Structures are given as C-alpha cells and as structure tokens.
C-alpha cells in the first residue's frame, strides 16, 4: 500500500516536471511580454493606491497568501514553544543577569521600537511592512526580556495576538459585504497617492500583521525564557 502511494506521488511529480519542461520551450509567456509583472506595474497605482508596488502585491493582489503566511508563522511559533518548553528540568537557569546588556537595552529599546513602528506604518509608501517591522519590535523585546529588564505576563500577548488575527479576518470579511465583493477587497477610500493616510485598508492590514508577528515572537521568547529563569 505504501509503495503504491509512493508510486502515485512520484508519477504525479514526474508528470508535472515533464509538462513543465515541454511548455517552457514552446510556450514561454515571459518572452512574449505577457507577464503578470508588467500588468501589475502598469495598474497598481490606480487599483490599490499604494506607492509601493511590492506592498500592493503582498497585501492587495495576494492578500489571501499573506493570511496563509501569518497562519504558517503562528503554527510554527506554537510548535517551537511546545518543543522548547518540553524536556528535562536539568538546565533551568541558563540566563544570567548582565549589567551591560541590561543598561544597553534600556537605552536602545525605545529606538528599536520606533524603527519597527516606522517600518510598519510606512509599509505602503516605502520598503518595509508588517513582517519585518514586527520582527524588529520583537527583537528589541526579546533582548529586554532576556536581560530581565521587563517582566510581562504572557497571557496579555496571547490576547493581543488573537485580537490581531481576528481583525485581519474581519477586514477580509468586510470586503465581502462590498459591492464588487471579494475577500480582502480594498473597500475604503484610496486617498491621495503617496500620502501617509492613503491606500485604503493596506496600512490597516500591515499594522495588524505587524502587531501579530511581534506579539507571536515575544510569546515565543516569554515561553522559553520564563522557563529558564525560574529556580
């Protein structure tokens, strides 16, 4: 039975590869100038109102993929914290207080957070967005938690993360109620091209993604560090 499934999988993969090789020589779309990229570059400013073409693809044209990405990150964070919090109790206190780390991060944490918020909030205007901005904020919080500067209850972050995920899905469902109805439709007014408040729901979605990524990764750090710290 197992061999049969392997055979079916392999033959399917072989069929895919053969069809791909056959098509690429005879019917190459990119060489004829028919590609999605040129079409998007022509129309993204009018259709999405975002000044950043990459953001318009990530949030608007491929918004559902972003939701999937966030879900993948959520699942991997859960699996990782499960792995890290399990195991033997032998090496509990691997964290040691470091004077330099504590003073350094107390000086740097506001600036790191500010850079993260800038990257998130200007995601539709300049390079950046929810994912990298959230990771930048989470990196600052990681270091602050590891140095023992701040102690936060991790249930707060779980609540924030859940609310952010619900808001993302809620924004998508609100697009369904609109007249040209589709999931994650940009139903809000586009505003002036290149302004801070423009591009409809794109800044909102990026803010939600940033909050979700930051709180997710901070929960991961809290799960493993609090375990290591208690004696």
């Amino acid at each position, binding site marked *: 039975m197992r061999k049969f499934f392997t055979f079916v999988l392999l033959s399917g993969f072989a069929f895919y590869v053969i069809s791909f090789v056959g098509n690429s020589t005879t019917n190459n779309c990119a060489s004829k100038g028919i590609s999605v990229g040129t079409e998007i570059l022509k129309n993204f400013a009018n259709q999405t109102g975002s000044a950043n073409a990459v*953001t318009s693809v990530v949030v608007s044209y491929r918004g559902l993929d972003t939701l999937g990405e966030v879900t993948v990150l959520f699942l991997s964070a859960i699996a990782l914290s499960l792995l*890290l919090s399990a195991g*033997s109790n032998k090496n509990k206190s691997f964290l040691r207080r470091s004077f330099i780390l504590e003073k350094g991060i107390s000086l740097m944490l506001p600036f790191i957070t500010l850079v993260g918020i800038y990257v998130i909030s200007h995601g539709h205007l300049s390079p950046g967005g929810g*994912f990298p901005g959230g990771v930048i904020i989470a*990196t600052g919080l990681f270091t602050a938690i590891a140095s023992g500067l701040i102690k936060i209850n991790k249930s707060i972050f779980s609540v924030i993360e859940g609310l952010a995920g619900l808001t993302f899905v809620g924004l998508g469902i609100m697009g369904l109620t609109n007249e040209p109805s589709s999931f994650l439709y940009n139903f809000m007014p586009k505003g002036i091209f290149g302004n801070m408040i423009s591009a409809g729901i794109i800044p909102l979605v990026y803010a939600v993604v940033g909050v979700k990524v930051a709180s997710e990764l901070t929960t991961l750090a809290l799960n*493993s560090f609090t375990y290591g710290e208690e004696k």
Partner: protein
Amino acid sequence: MLYLVLFLFTIMIVTAIAIMFIKDISGAIIVTSIISLVASVLFLIMAAPDVAITEASIGSALTLVVFMLAVFKTQRGKK
C-alpha cells in the same frame, strides 16, 4: 560595483566555509548571521529593498535568537 559584489560574495563563501571549522556552537551561530547580513546588502544592490529589510531582520536577528534558544535548551554532548 562589480568588485564590491565580488567582494561580498567572497565574504559569504569564506564565512560559510569558516562555520564548519568553528568548534564553539554559539560562535558558529553568530557567524551564520553574518551570511544573512551580507546577503541583505546584496539584495539592496540588486534593487530589492523590501527583501533586504526582511532578510536583515529575520535572517540575522530572528534566526540567531531561535538557534541560540535551541542550543541553550538542549543538552550539550560529552566529549
């Protein structure tokens, strides 16, 4: 510009080879993040600032933290 790119590529290859010869695990992890940092500069040269920011933040910060956690949470093997 070509020489800069070649220099960065050389740094990446040398670091990748050097990781194999580092005995200390935490040192090897820190050296791994140098590869991501150089790769983000290369992405910037190739006019992809979005990817460069993501690579710099995730590749050199988050990967390092996760690998460090994994190393410190697991037992070290005896010699």
